């Protein structure tokens, strides 16, 4: 067993590792993150191993399963080193060709590389793909370079050198000063300066002190912390140990939701490996600093992402928040000084220590430094994880990186900050993304969820959806959140069902005020945001629902009807046959009519109507046109018409 007792021993070990590795030896990196696994990456890995054996290349080629590089839309992603050839949507059937051509003959399999959907241009290397080219991947870049289960891989790319530097060449106060100077703000939601938080704990008289990784990521559609913890658990661990040193804590926790089994597995493994190497435990690297880490699996309550609820849960009680008038960095876990930061915040720490605060602050805006990882999802061409410098515009994220809206649809809004964030309209797309600008626009950074919505999204329904989520996730302790959200959800549901009435908006506003001002924790205080931000930018949609019983996005089922335009219908029988409830009347050469009493508004007819006819459309807020007289329903052939 290797035990690294000093910084020198660590460096010698690293050099040893590197000298045993040939940088020119081909290596096939296959993403085995959650997204790619779902697209079949497991079979691809197996196919590569089998094919390499078959072609007797086992000694000449390495294969590794890595963490998520972000381009989930085109998974499984395979990158072949040293050339960095990037293949997308690889299936086991492609594997023999890749091995024969790319590995043996150094030729590119053209059909598997990225092709620009507009220009048709091919991009062979990862860094040439527009999705990656406009990103700044300080943290995520390592995911594809290492086997997430191998500490040696992490050490080979310079892992734990920041820990060595912090423990053996810097005092704890110097480490703290560096993080403060970097102005690293919490990536988990509030954007509170991490250095300031650490300093508060450090200066608090009570001991012991604790440091915690908040990996209770629970926003619908968000998976950045998951990808980091699954793909590069040692980076998070290294940051945590450095934080413990700066704060004066000898004990750390990783609070990770048990719905992330791979993240749980990888962080537990990482801790065990670090202990074996002497990077955790007593007298780390001979510095005299002791530190241990325990993993706590959360049962999957959204509210446990809130700091005080998380700590209550960690103490073994029901995860309910407690009053925060004394900050948890002073009185936190077991009433002791506790620093809680999220996964991404901790992962930034080794970079800051290694490269310095001056390097870190070069990137970003005045108030927000560094990069931020977003999970870009919804109505967007390139779904995935993106890491961008603070200050990039929403437009660049959505169009340059995200590749715009699919199907030629129009952009309507982007929802940022998780369920209690807000929706930002097209007029603000040039907003430079940072903590303060998003808050000013009525949304927030949150942990980095970014859900893109197109013109077919009903904003009232979006508000209803998120308020429903938050109602479900409310812990129920305090009244404005538990009962207020319940009533808000009822009213919003009524509005989307055409049962909205005069005064509803005012009631919603009053309930919002009570929740924002009087709730116990951040969940309740921010819960009305989905309503408040959609009202701010899309009030006309609320008015249309309430006053005209019309859904402008043609989404709310109770407010729309499907109608076949008799002038366009060619009586082809397609919709008539496909309608699951036989609501369409008509026949061969007899123009089809939808029986509104039978119609369940499933939308099948609109989907199947041939695009050259496009005879079916949705109508809302207007009376159904009168059916055409029976005698005019018979379609004559063109020759008969003349």
């Amino acid at each position, binding site marked *: 067993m290797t035990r690294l007792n000093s910084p020198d021993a660590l460096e010698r070990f690293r050099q040893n590792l590197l000298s045993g590795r040939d940088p020119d030896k081909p290596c096939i990196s296959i993403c085995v993150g959650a997204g790619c696994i779902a697209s079949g990456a497991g079979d691809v890995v197996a196919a590569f191993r089998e094919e390499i054996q078959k072609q007797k290349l086992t000694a000449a080629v390495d294969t590794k399963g890595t963490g998520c590089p972000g381009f989930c839309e085109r998974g499984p992603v395979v990158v072949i080193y040293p050339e960095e050839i990037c293949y997308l949507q690889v299936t086991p059937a492609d594997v023999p060709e890749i091995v024969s051509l790319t590995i043996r003959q150094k030729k590119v399999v053209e059909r598997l590389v990225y092709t620009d959907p507009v220009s048709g241009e091919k991009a062979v290397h990862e860094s040439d793909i527009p999705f990656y080219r406009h990103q700044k991947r300080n943290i995520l870049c390592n995911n594809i370079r290492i086997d997430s289960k191998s500490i040696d891989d992490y050490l080979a790319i310079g892992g734990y050198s920041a820990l060595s530097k912090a423990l053996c060449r810097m005092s704890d106060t110097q480490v703290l000063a560096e993080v403060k100077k970097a102005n690293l703000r919490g990536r988990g939601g509030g954007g509170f300066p991490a250095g300031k938080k650490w300093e508060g704990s450090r200066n608090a008289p009570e001991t012991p002190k604790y440091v915690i990784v908040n990996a209770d990521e629970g926003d619908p559609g968000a998976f950045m912390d998951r990808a980091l913890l699954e793909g590069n658990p040692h980076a998070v661990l290294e940051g945590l140990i450095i934080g413990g040193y700066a704060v004066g804590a000898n004990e750390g926790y990783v609070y990770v939701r048990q719905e992330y089994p791979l993240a749980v597995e990888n962080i537990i493994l990482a801790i065990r490996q670090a202990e074996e190497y002497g990077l955790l435990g007593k007298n780390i690297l001979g510095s005299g600093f002791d530190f241990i880490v325990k993993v706590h699996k959360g049962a999957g309550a959204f509210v446990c992402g809130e700091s005080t609820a998380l700590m209550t849960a960690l103490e073994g009680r029901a995860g309910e928040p407690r009053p925060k008038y004394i900050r948890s960095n002073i009185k936190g876990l077991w009433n002791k000084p506790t620093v809680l930061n999220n996964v991404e915040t901790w992962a930034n720490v080794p970079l800051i220590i290694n490269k310095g605060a001056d390097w870190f602050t070069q990137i970003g805006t005045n108030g927000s430094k560094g990069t931020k990882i977003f999970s870009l999802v919804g109505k967007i061409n390139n779904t995935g994880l993106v890491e961008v410098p603070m200050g990039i515009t929403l437009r660049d994220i959505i169009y340059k990186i995200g590749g715009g809206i699919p199907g030629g649809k129009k952009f309507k809004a982007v929802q940022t900050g998780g369920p209690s964030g807000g929706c930002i309209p097209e007029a603000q797309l040039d907003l430079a993304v940072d903590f303060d600008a998003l808050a000013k626009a009525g949304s927030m950074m949150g942990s980095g969820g970014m859900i893109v919505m197109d013109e077919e999204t009903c904003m009232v329904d979006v508000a209803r959806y998120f308020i429903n989520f938050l109602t*479900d996730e409310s812990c*129920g302790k305090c009244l*404005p959140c*538990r009962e207020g959200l319940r009533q808000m959800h009822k009213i919003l549901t009524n509005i989307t069902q055409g049962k909205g009435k005069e005064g509803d908006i005012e*009631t919603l506003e009053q309930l919002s005020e*009570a929740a924002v001002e*009087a709730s116990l924790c951040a969940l309740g205080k921010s819960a009305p945001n989905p309503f408040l931000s959609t009202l701010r930018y899309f009030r006309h949609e609320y008015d249309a629902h309430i006053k005209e019983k019309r859904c402008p996005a043609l989404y709310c089922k109770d407010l729309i009807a499907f109608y076949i335009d008799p002038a366009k219908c060619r009586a082809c029988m397609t919709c008539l046959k496909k309608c699951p409830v036989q609501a369409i009347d008509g026949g061969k050469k007899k123009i089809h009519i939808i029986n509104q009493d039978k119609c369940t508004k499933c939308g099948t007819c609109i989907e199947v109507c041939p695009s050259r006819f496009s005879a079916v459309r949705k109508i809302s807020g207007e009376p159904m046109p009168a059916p055409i007289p029976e005698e005019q329903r018979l379609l004559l052939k063109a020759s008969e018409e003349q």
Partner: protein
Amino acid sequence: MSEIRLQIDGKEVVAREGMTVLEAARSAGIAIPTLCDHEKLEPFGGCRICVVEVDAGSRSQIVVSCVYPVENNLIVRTKSEKLSRIRKILIELLLSHAPDSPLLQELAKEYGADRNRFDKEASFCVHCGLCVRYCAEIKKKNAVGFIDRGVRKEISFIPEIAAQECNRCKECFPLCPTSYLQAAFVLTEALAFTPASSEAAAVKQA
């Protein structure tokens, strides 16, 4: 304990360190409405009806007085248009569960709350937690607790403990603002007390 000087509704108040704003106000004869507060129990901060406005430094914010600690030079306002508006809607939310609770009716009268503002909900617990906390903190029995989460959260007697303890205690009954507690107890007694446990309790009582 050192003395803390603060101002509540324009009145100079002297409090002890560690007191809450609610305690300081009461000691000075200033009334703040409460629902989940009880002098014998730890502050809970659930009903949020005791909200007040405080100016600390340059910031003005709304806090709940039952858990907010006093500090020197704090300026507290217990009445304002905004506070009344918040208290009113909070009471209205509770009235949808327990429209006939005497305590809620009294509060409703003071703040002009409409008992029909929201649709009635069939459950009449207001989640003040008085019974749960009294049993845990004072009696140390934990015969009644909260189960489930959020809008599904409710109080529930634990039959094994309740069968042994409750019949001779029932000290929590008068604390309940809505009488739901009694109903929950009778329901548990009828459905979940086994003859053996009830007999044992009866023997103990005799």
